[in-house]
C-alpha cells in the first residue's frame, strides 16, 4: 500500500512537471515565432508594427548608401512590385549585393522604415533565400492577376 502511494505521488509529480515544462516551451515558442512578410504585404499594412518579423526580396539596384560612420547602411528591399526602405547598423554579410536576394530580421519604425537587427548571410552566391524567392514569386503572381478583372481574383490570395 505504501509503495503504491509513493508510486502515485511519483506519477503525479512527473505529470505536473511535464505540464509545467510543456507550458513553458509552448509559451516561449508562441512569443518567439518570427513571421515572414514580403514588401507587398508590408506595403498593404499586413505586417505587425509591434513585433519583429522577417522581410525578404531583392536589394534594389543603386539603393545602397552608407553613412559616414561606415557601418550604418541604408538600402531598399523590393519584390519588383513594392519596395521597403531598410536601415541596418553593422557589417553586411559577404554575399550582400545589390540585385541579389536578401532576408532581414527586424521591425518597422514609425516612418515606414524597416530597422533591421540582422541581415542574413547566405553561404553560396547563387543561392536565393527561399523567403526572398517566394516574395518575388508572389509579387509576380499578383502582377499577372492584375490583368484579370479585379473581381475574379484578389492578388492577396495567390499563395
Amino acid at each position, binding site marked *: 500500500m505504501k509503495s503504491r502511494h509513493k508510486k502515485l505521488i511519483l506519477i503525479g509529480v512527473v505529470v505536473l512537471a*511535464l505540464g509545467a515544462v510543456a507550458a513553458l516551451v509552448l509559451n516561449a*515558442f508562441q512569443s518567439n515565432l518570427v513571421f*515572414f512578410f514580403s514588401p507587398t504585404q508590408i506595403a498593404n499594412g499586413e505586417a505587425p508594427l509591434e513585433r519583429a518579423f*522577417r522581410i525578404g526580396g531583392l536589394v534594389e539596384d543603386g539603393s545602397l548608401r552608407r553613412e559616414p560612420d561606415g557601418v550604418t547602411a541604408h538600402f531598399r528591399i523590393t519584390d519588383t512590385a513594392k519596395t521597403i526602405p531598410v536601415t541596418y547598423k553593422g557589417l553586411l554579410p559577404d554575399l550582400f549585393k545589390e540585385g541579389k536576394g536578401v532576408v532581414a530580421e527586424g521591425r518597422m519604425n514609425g516612418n515606414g522604415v524597416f530597422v533591421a537587427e540582422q541581415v542574413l548571410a547566405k553561404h553560396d552566391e547563387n543561392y536565393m533565400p527561399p523567403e526572398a524567392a517566394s516574395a518575388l514569386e508572389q509579387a509576380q503572381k499578383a502582377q499577372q492577376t492584375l490583368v484579370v478583372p479585379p473581381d475574379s481574383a484578389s492578388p492577396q490570395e495567390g499563395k
Partner: protein
Amino acid sequence: MIPELGHFALILALLIALVQGVLPLVGAARNNQAWMAVARPAARAQFLLVAIAFCALAYSFLTHDFSVVNVTRNSHSRLPEIYRFTATWGSHEGSMLLWTLILGLWTVAVTLFSRHLPDDMVARVIGVMGLVSFGFLLFMLATSNPFLRMPMAMDGSDLNPLLQDPGMVVHPPILYMGYVGFSVAFAFAIAALLSGKLDASWARWSRPWTTSAWAFLTIGIMMGSWWAYYELGWGGWWFWDPVENASLMPWLVGTALIHSLAVTEKRGSFKAWTVFLAIGAFSLSLLGTFLVRSGVLSSVHSFATDPTRGLFILMFLAAVIGSSLLLFAMRASKVGLGGRFALVSRESFLMVNNILLLTATASVLLGTLYPLFLDALGLGKISVGPPYFNSVFIPLVTPLIFLAGVGPLTRWKQVNVPELAHRLKWGFGASVVVALLLPFTQEKWLPMVSLGILLALWIAVTVAISVRARLRTTAGWSANFYGMHLAHLGVAVTVIGVTMVSSYQTERNMRMAVGETVTVQGYTFRFDGVVDVTGPNYTGSRGTLEVSQNGKPFTTLHPEKRIYVASGMPFTESAIDYGFTRDLYTALGERLDDGAWSVRLFHKPFVVWIWIGSVLMALGGFMAITDRRYRAARKLKGGEA
C-alpha cells in the same frame, strides 16, 4: 576506369549488404548456425568494397578527373591537394559515401570486439547494421551516384570557400563517427527486441559502444561550433541553426541513453525505456543526416534539391523509424520494465535527468521542424530564432546540472535524504556565496552570471566530495567512475564559457582609417591598412591590426577578405588571438573610401572554455569505456569459447 571500378564496388557492396542483412537475421530466428556465421565475413567484405569505392572517389578528386560530375562541381584545378581530398565528402553524394564507409567501420569493429557475445546476438546486431547499410547504398545508387560521368569539363567550379579549411578534414568524419556510432546501440536494441533477452549483460555490451559514439558526437559538435566561430566571421559559437539542432538532438537523446543504460546495467531497471532511447538516438541521427544533406534546410551543409531524393529519404526514414517503433510496441512488454526503486533514489534522479533531456530534445525538434511543416503545407513562412531556444534551455538545463551534481553521490534504490543534505550543505552554501560574489569582480553584476557560476561550482564541489569519499574507501581505480566525473566537470567548464561570453562579450563594428586606434576592454587596436594577397585559388586583401595593452605591443592580427577565383565568391577570414580567459576576434568588413575599412572587433571572455569543456566531456566518455569490467566480461566468455 577508376570511377567505374568505384561504381561497380558500390553495386557489389549493395548485394553483400543485403546478404549481411537477411541471412544472419533469419539464421538467428531459426537457430541456423551456418547462416548466422555469414554475418562477420559479409560485414568485412562489404566494408572492403565501400572502402574501394571511397578510394576511387578520392582518387578522382586528387587526379582532377573532371569527367566525373561530382568532381567538376566540387573541385578546381587550383584547389590545394588536401582540400581536393576533403572535397571527397564535400558534396551530398560524397558525404553519403562517407556515412556508409563509417557504418562499415563500426560494423567491422563489432565483428572484432564481439567474441564474448552469444552468436545469435552478434548475428542480429550485424544483420540490422547490414540492413541500414543496404538502405544507404540503395539511396546512393538510385539517386545520388557519386561516380556519375559527364563530358569532360575544362575545369571545376571549386569547393565552397567555407569548406576550404582544416576543419573540413576532421569535422565531418568525427561527427559521422558519432551519428553512425548510434547505429550500434540501435542494432543492439533491435536485437534485444527480436530475441526478447535484455539483461544486465546486454546493457554491459552496449554501453561502451554507446558511450564511444556519444563521445565522438560530442567532439564532432564541438569542432563544428569552433569552426563556425572562426570561419563565418560573426564570432558566434552557436546559432540555433537547424543544422546545428540536427546534431544536438541525437546528442541530447544519446546523453539520456548513456545514463539510462547505466541504470539498466546496474539495477536492471528502465529496460524498455533504454531500448526506446536507443531507437530514438539513431532515428534522430538519421533525421539529422537527411535534414542537413537533403537540401530541406538551407545552409552551407546542404546541396541542390532533388525531389526524388527527398521522397526516398522520407520513405527510408519512415521504414526505419516505423518498423523499429512497431517492433518496440509489439515486443517491449517481453523485455520488461525492470526492478523497482524508491521515490528518492539514484534511479529516480536519473529518470528526471532523462525527462529533462527528452523535453529539451522535443523543444529543439519543435523549433526545427515546425517551420518546415508550415512551409511544406503552404501555411506561410516563419522562423524560430535563438530567443526561443535560450528561454527554453536555461530553465531545463538548470535542474539538469543541479542533478548532475547530486546524482553521483546518491545510492541506488533508496536515498537517505538527511544524510545527503548533511554531506552537501557546506558545499552548496559555499557555491552560493562564491557565485553571488564572484561577478562583482567583473564590470557589472548579472543574475545570469551568478546562476552560471553557481551551477559550475556546484558540479566542481560535488565531484570533489565524491572523489574524496571514494579515495577514503578501499575501492581502487575505476575508469567508469572517474570518466563520469571528468565528463561532469566538462559540463561545468562549458557552462562557465557560455555564461561569461554571453554576458560580458564586447562587440565593436566601426569604420577604421589607416592609423586609427580603438580600445576595447583594455586592448588597443591600431589599423595599419591592407595589402593585396594572392592565394592558390583566391585573391584578396590582408589587413594588419596592431594590438597593444597598456602601451606595450601585444600581438598583430591579420584578418583577410578574399575573393575565390572560380566562384567569384567573397569571403571573410577572421584573425583571432586565442587566450585562456579571453579571445580577441577581428574581421574585415568592406573597403570604404581612402583606404579605410569597416572592421569588426570582439572581446570574448572565456569563450574557449566552451570547447575545452566539450573536450573534457568526450575524454570522460572515452575514459569510461576503458573500464575493466567491459574487458573482464570479454576475457571470461573468451575462455569458454
